């Protein structure tokens, strides 16, 4: 086998059968038109589902003579209704990209030298397994860690499953505590149902514009027009056209903000202060649903003011019985579940009983928001108090309504508290499980045990002594809900060797160095690792540092089950190229190699009887799907043929008031999926989580260094313009980030159709600030934080809050083979902060709401970056030369 340089490797790969894309035409000419003598095209349409982002929109892929030649939305998809966005519509350019990873490659020469040798899958996986087993023998399985995140086509639980089975507690993703987990955790603990994230394909009530009564929607740090244009963006759009009132909380004037009834351009990182002010206003003005709060939340329950724990009535049975202050009797009484009509529970009060001070949950909530008047919040958040009031009134005057909380608040150390506060507001308003609100427990097909991802994590396979070694797992116990480690704790362990030295890293991602905070620290850490594996559809900056590269399948090559409202959609392969494999299969194959080398857990993972509901590992994706599709009475092959199909009639699927359904075991209403069956606005279980890890850790863990708080509190960002200190004087602008509709996380920067529309990251700056710093529209500028500086193209616009700077995430595939490896030029994560303060519950670091300065880059754009449409021509699908195997 010949040794080839990375450049050769990138250039040597192209595909057969395509016509010449002369002059950079992104279109495909039919084979039958391509020249004399070509056979008549054989055409079929594959009903599949996109995975250019996580929205999974239904797609009709036209395949002619084995080549995908056209993509259109599938009208049978109830969420996208036949529409697609720029990311999905450019899927052919991703599939047929000339720089795909095509074969497993093994590094030759120095790490980072960019020289590779093509190897077989057997050789690649064998070598990885050898290294894993050797590391496990010498240092323990915990010295191996895995990661996902950054976009692409993963089945996220595949990674957690492999780690559990291999015996390492350490996998992480740069999202997780920074993206979505804070909301999942809070809504799960307080409500026990699905959180209202539009970008995560929840908020399903929005997809029935014809008959939902929803009248107000608060888009808090979310921009569905940008994150999921064809599904959530389209649905909100349709509802707006039908009269829905919207409020948008966002420092950036997104399309949704521009179309809203009221835009609240908040200072980044201050959301909790504003949420607490909403809560106070709603309480003070009696705008909460008093009857619902009394009957269905835990706010009337008495709390020991010193221990902060609820007062339980001794007795047996589940749920526990809690004490209330009965106004009739003038004393504390046990409140039988679900409600004792003979009692008159006091909602807001406190009483000294036998020397112990008890307060109702409601009183504690009221006290926790007392300081947050409209004026106070206005001062913190940079908003007019009257404007805040107007926004609250839009939400409370137009009922039913709901708050859709987005990712913005997940990206600062105040993350979990933001989700708790937002959830509390909707719960106070009684916006739960009635028509027209977002917190719902609609029925599911039961094919997927958890939403969106079918692979069982096999949690019990991780021995308790290994779980205890999870990096960050004691401090940030909320991470156990996703069985995940804490990125900064893993980073610190690599850099310091404390508490132990991680040595082997298996990553699947769009580009780890573009999505982790403070990429420079991670680049430094990479130098300390023994062995690095990267799997993805195309090379990324991270590939440059890898020892083995594995080629994975694009979404047009893969199969997956997608549940979309009451419809099951199948992602099904429309093509297959090169020697690529489905990521979900790769982890299985790796486990098999470890089993061959004597790993007991991996061997057991192939034993169907032993694995039970955790499922035995699979030799093909079809074998895996055949384990789970029987939930709808068929094998996967049949499902693929039928899909999309409705697994339940819409009326039956859209189940409202689930909490009132009778529990057949007790004859009582089933309530909510929380320990008390009530809505736990006073979140006592947060205290338990901090002390023990329960219920998310399967075994008790030592207490966290800080007690977790049962009610939300505001945390001013560490770097803040409000502090008037040395940092804020040198770095006067607050940075925020967010989606644009052309990319998903770190993916798609190599797609000509997208790069030509958005070639470099835009940096939005208000004219007030632009004038102050001598920056003009269209100038290249430096954006600099305490941690580094990068360049971007300045867009001067009043659509960004003064004092705030918006920068889109970016990396540059075109400079992959240079010294920067493409992650150092324009990558906002060079600026972000990976160190404390962290969120107390889940360890969130600072991806937004930190301080930077901006100044003109007299040098212009970074060297080698592509900015003009024609520059991207070499990334278009190109005609193939023959691949005889010798060259590669």
């Amino acid at each position, binding site marked *: 086998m010949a040794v080839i340089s990375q450049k050769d490797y990138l250039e040597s790969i192209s595909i057969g059968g395509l016509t010449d894309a002369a002059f950079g*035409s992104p279109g495909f000419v039919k084979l039958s038109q391509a020249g004399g003598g070509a056979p008549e095209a054989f055409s079929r349409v594959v009903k599949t589902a996109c995975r250019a982002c996580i929205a999974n929109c239904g797609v009709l892929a036209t395949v002619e003579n084995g080549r995908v030649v*056209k993509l259109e939305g599938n009208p049978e998809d109830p969420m996208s209704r036949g*529409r*697609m966005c*720029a990311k999905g519509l450019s899927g052919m350019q991703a599939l047929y990209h000339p720089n795909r990873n095509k074969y497993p490659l093994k590094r030759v020469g120095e790490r980072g030298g960019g020289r590779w040798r093509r190897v077989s899958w057997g050789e690649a996986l064998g070598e990885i397994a050898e290294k894993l087993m050797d590391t496990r023998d010498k240092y323990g399985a915990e010295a191996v860690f895995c990661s996902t995140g950054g976009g692409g086509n993963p089945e996220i639980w595949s990674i957690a499953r492999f780690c559990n089975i291999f015996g390492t507690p350490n996998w992480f993703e740069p999202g997780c505590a920074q993206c979505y987990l804070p909301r999942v955790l809070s809504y799960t603990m307080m409500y026990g149902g699905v959180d209202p994230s539009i970008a995560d394909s929840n908020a399903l009530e929005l997809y029935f514009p014809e008959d939902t009564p929803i009248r107000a929607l608060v888009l808090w740090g979310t921009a569905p027009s940008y994150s999921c244009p064809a599904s959530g963006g389209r649905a909100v759009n349709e509802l707006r056209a039908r009269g829905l009132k919207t409020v948008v909380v966002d420092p950036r004037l997104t399309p949704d903000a521009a179309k809203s009834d009221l835009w609240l351009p908040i200072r980044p990182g201050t959301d909790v202060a504003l949420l607490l002010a909403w809560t106070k206003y709603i309480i003070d003005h009696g705008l909460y649903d008093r009857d619902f709060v009394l009957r269905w939340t835990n706010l009337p329950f008495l709390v020991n003011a010193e221990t902060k724990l609820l007062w339980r009535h001794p007795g047996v049975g589940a749920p526990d019985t809690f004490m209330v202050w009965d106004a009739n009797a003038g004393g504390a009484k046990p409140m039988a579940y679900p409600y004792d009509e003979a009692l008159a529970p006091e909602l807001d009060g406190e009483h000294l009983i036998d020397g112990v001070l008890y307060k109702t949950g409601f009183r504690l909530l009221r006290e926790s928001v007392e300081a947050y008047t409209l004026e106070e919040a206005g001062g913190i958040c940079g908003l007019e108090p009257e404007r805040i009031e107007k926004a609250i009134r839009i939400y409370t005057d137009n009922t039913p309504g709901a708050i859709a909380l987005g990712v913005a608040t997940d990206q600062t150390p105040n993350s979990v508290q933001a989700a708790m506060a937002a959830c509390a507001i909707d719960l106070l308003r009684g916006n739960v499980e009635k028509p027209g609100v977002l917190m719902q427990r609609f029925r599911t097909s039961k094919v997927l045990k958890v939403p969106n991802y079918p692979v069982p994590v096999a949690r019990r396979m991780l021995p308790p002594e290994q779980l205890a070694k999870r990096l960050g797992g004691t401090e940030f116990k909320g991470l156990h809900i996703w069985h995940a480690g804490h990125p900064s704790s893993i980073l610190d362990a690599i850099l310091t060797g404390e508490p132990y030295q991680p040595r082997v890293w298996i990553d699947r991602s769009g580009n780890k160095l573009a999505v982790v905070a403070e990429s420079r620290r991670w680049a430094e850490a990479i130098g300390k690792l023994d062995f690095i594996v990267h799997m993805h559809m195309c090379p990324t900056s991270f590939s440059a540092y890898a020892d083995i590269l594995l080629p994975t399948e694009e979404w047009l090559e893969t199969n997956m089950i997608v549940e979309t409202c009451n419809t099951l959609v199948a992602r099904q392969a429309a093509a297959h190229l090169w020697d690529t494999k489905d990521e979900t299969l790769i982890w299985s194959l790796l486990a098999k190699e470890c089993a061959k080398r004597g790993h007991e857990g991996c061997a057991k993972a192939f034993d169907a009887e032993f694995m039970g509901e955790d499922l035995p590992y699979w030799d093909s994706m079809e074998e895996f799907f055949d384990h789970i599709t029987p939930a709808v009475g068929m094998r996967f092959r049949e499902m693929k043929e039928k899909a999309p199909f409705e697994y339940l009639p819409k009326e039956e699927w859209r189940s409202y008031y689930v909490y009132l359904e009778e529990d057949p075991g007790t004859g009582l209403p089933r309530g909510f999926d929380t320990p008390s069956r009530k809505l736990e606005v006073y979140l006592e279980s947060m205290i338990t989580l901090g002390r023990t890890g329960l219920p998310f850790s399967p075994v008790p863990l030592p207490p966290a260094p800080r007690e977790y708080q049962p009610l939300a509190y505001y945390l001013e960002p560490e770097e803040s313009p409000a502090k008037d200190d040395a940092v804020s004087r040198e770095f006067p602008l607050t940075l925020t980030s967010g989606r644009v509709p052309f990319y998903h996380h770190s993916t798609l920067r190599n797609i000509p159709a997208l790069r030509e529309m958005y070639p470099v990251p835009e940096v939005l700056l208000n004219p007030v600030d632009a004038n102050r710093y001598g920056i003009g529209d269209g100038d290249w500028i430096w954006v600099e934080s305490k941690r580094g500086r990068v360049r971007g193209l300045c867009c001067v616009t009043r659509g960004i809050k003064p004092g705030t700077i918006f920068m889109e995430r970016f990396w540059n595939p075109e400079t992959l083979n240079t010294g920067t490896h493409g992650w150092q030029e324009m990558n906002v994560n060079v600026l972000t902060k990976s160190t404390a303060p962290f969120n107390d519950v889940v360890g969130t670091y600072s991806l937004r709401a930190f301080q930077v300065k901006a100044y003109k880059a007299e040098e212009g754009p970074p060297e080698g970056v592509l900015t003009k449409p024609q520059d991207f*021509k070499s990334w*278009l699908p190109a005609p193939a030369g023959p691949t005889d195997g010798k060259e590669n």
Partner: protein
Amino acid sequence: MSQWIILVDVDRCIGCKGGCQVACKTENGIALGPSRCTNYTIGPYGDYPDLNMYFLPVMCQQCDQPACVKVCPTGARYKDAASKDAADGVVKIDGGLCVGCQSCIRACPYQANYFNPERKAADKCDLCQARRDRGEQPACVRNCAGECLFFGDIDDPESEVSRRIREAGEGNVHALKEASGCKPNGRFILRNAPWLDMLPHEFSRAALEGGDGHE
């Protein structure tokens, strides 16, 4: 009489550039750089924080008095009464006659023409002639994520576009840059913000001169 057009419900355009730019380019095999349809951002304008901003997908407006036809030296560009009566009202290009002088590109007030380097000829939106021949809607209309594009015959009072224009109310329906004298047939519905009747370069100029409503 038939006059097929694309109606843009601007209130519904979310600026995602998927259907109107990416699907169009793929469908029509357009080179990197030019575009048959461009989705412009107009604004923000108004008094901060009560700002307006809208997105404007602009393609050939299928004018009754097309500037491109007027300036075309070879007759390659045409729209005559006969064709409008007979067919679809689309401004057409006879590729065989086009000499690539690019007069049309300079003349069009909508910047809706571009030079096709493969054919060495001017090109523009033809409302997806090939798709229409198969009974399908133009690619932009079919794929638009915001569901803001509608295709139909504005001369037919029963068509969807005519119905939507009626329902929007006269004051909310706009033609782009009518002052050009081209008599454009494309229509834009904008109810929720003041219509500026500008493309971005004009907006930038107006903003510099304080004419964008910014105090």
